[in-house]
């Protein structure tokens, strides 16, 4: 039973990572390397929390969080897509800005707790039929609605990217913007839309932390999860379905050290905390040694597109 509760907790710990990762996958698939994930998550976390406390309405809180994350992405998009600024530097600046924004907004929120009505809204619900499957049901289908939203988002994104014309266009924009432009796809528009939707998803990931996972406001609530999400994108080979599995795995790593203490095992939590990054580096290395296209990432990643320079 301990094992099942551990896996169920891993799914929960993986949910903020999942949203941020899906957002970053969408962003990177369109050729933008946005390292501002941590910043956008923080912006979403604080705005979601603030709106939640003010309105007591969970839907408005989520919309607020998405708006905040999306706003961060719009700044990033304007600078990198329209003004062709360096993507890495802009992303890092966005993280500085987002952290400042969240700390500033959150100053009056420190110690505040999510209202009871919203806690009830976000409490775990057992899905009919699925929740009764032995083992699997207890791990995956007796979770809070936010977790289910994560599953749905991952599947919808997977279908979108691999089975629709729009998804095909996005992938071309990310791989070879010149070819996309020549075939009549509006490169800038695709980049903008996917950046902003990606940012909104990062904001949702942040809101999960402040509204459900903690659920109270504390400074630096993301604690580096944005960077784990960047790692997870690589681990998942830019694939939303694999992100679903990867998020559970990384979520498990996030909590395993704490759980191991109960068994008096002498493995430091801090060494275990290194694992996501080490695993990601291994994936990067193996991908490059085998020249794997799948794990190499979009070809146009990090390069601003300029039609006149083609």
């Amino acid at each position, binding site marked *: 039973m301990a094992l099942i509760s551990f896996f169920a907790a891993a799914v929960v710990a993986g949910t903020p990572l999942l949203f941020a990762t899906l957002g970053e996958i969408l962003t990177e698939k369109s050729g933008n390397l946005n390292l501002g994930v941590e910043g956008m998550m923080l912006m979403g976390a604080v705005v979601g929390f603030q709106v939640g406390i003010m309105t007591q309405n969970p839907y408005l809180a989520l919309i607020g969080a998405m708006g905040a994350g999306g706003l961060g992405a719009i700044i990033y998009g304007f600078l990198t897509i329209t003004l062709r600024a*360096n993507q890495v530097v802009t992303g890092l600046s966005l993280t500085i800005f987002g952290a400042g924004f969240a700390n500033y907004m959150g100053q009056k929120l420190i110690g505040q707790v999510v209202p009871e009505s919203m806690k009830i809204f976000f409490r775990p619900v057992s899905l009919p039929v699925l929740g009764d499957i032995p083992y699997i049901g207890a791990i995956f289908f007796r979770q809070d609605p936010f977790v289910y939203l994560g599953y749905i988002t991952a599947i919808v994104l997977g279908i979108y990217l691999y089975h629709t014309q729009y998804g095909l266009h996005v992938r071309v924009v990310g791989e070879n913007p010149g070819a996309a432009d020549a075939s009549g796809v509006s490169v800038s528009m695709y980049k903008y839309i996917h950046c902003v939707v990606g940012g909104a998803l990062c904001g949702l990931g942040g809101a999960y932390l402040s509204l459900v996972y903690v659920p109270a406001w504390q400074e630096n609530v993301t604690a580096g999860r944005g960077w784990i999400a960047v790692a997870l994108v690589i681990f998942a080979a830019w694939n939303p379905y694999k992100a679903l599995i990867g998020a559970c795995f990384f979520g498990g790593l996030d909590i395993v050290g704490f759980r191991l203490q109960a068994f008096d095992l002498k493995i430091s939590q801090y060494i275990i905390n290194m694992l996501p990054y080490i695993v990601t580096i291994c994936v990067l290395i193996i991908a490059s040694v085998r020249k794997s296209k799948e794990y190499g990432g979009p070809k146009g990643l990090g390069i601003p597109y300029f039609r006149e320079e083609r």
Partner: protein
Amino acid sequence: MIRLIKKADISQSQIMTIRIMAVFLSLFTAGVFILFLGHNPFSVYGSMMSGSFGSLYRLQETILKTIPLLITSLGIAVAFRMKFWNIGAEGQICMGAFCASFFALHFSELPSLILLPIMMVAGIVGGGVWALIPGVFKAYFGTNETLFTLMMNYIALKWITYLQYGPWKDPDALGFPKIKNFSESAILPNIFGIHIGWIIALLLVAIMHFFIHYTKKGYEITVVGESENTARYAGMDVKKVVLIGLLISGGLCGITGMIQASAISNTLSVEVSGGVGFTAIITTWLSGLSAPMIVLISFLFAILVQGGSFIQTAFQIPQSAAQMLQGVILFFVLGSEFFIQYQVIFPWNQYMQKEEN
């Protein structure tokens, strides 16, 4: 239709005008925000200035904040010059600090004159090796260095945390997770009230400027960055150049780590880099990879940081607001690069050009 043209030649004074305009625009935007908070923007900016220059002590604080940014930016610039996107400075600082601290803690009875140089070399090796690992994989397999170096940061940070909370924890600190303070001999001496890091930094600026522009290796690094094929055609060993460049890049970051551990915190802690590795990426980029410009930009950024912490006490404006201000200024300056590189031609201007012809 709105068209863009890449500006062929643009004078230094034009570039400076655009940059200064960007900074003013960002100060204006932030000023509106400060007004919105109910403060007078002029007095806030004024007190940021007096917080950075107002007294000898404050000026020293500003310089103390410049030193790590400056040295780290010099290091990052070497890698960027080769178009190797080393964003792992944070980790390289940590590992440099770790190696230097190893000697500081285990050979504390050595005299300063021997111990400090050993720590310096250890710092260079620690930072250099940490940069070399992704470098080797990039050179031989083409592994994506941006993501690789980024991940290496967190491994280094967790490693230091592990040491601080585990094997290196000071048993005399009453359970408080900190590493033992260095002995006197492991702490950099002061000159004019500031640790000698500032002399090291200025020396390094001169050395790096000379190295890049007046030595063969420096030239090779520039050529590899401009075009790898050209470098190969000219008979350069590209892999070797990249690896040497990275040793230098990481080594400089390692020096930062050694200085910060020795002179600022007098011990090793997770805060040893304190985000300098990331901030320095921005300062490096804004300075256009030129060593003298790095001095200026790092100093300006240190004013922002120091002034930001000062307005917290003077106006009760939280430091996070200053952090946002940093972000806003960066956005504007990054955006202004566009107007340095490109000329926007609006439809009405096109017709005017035709009439003139």
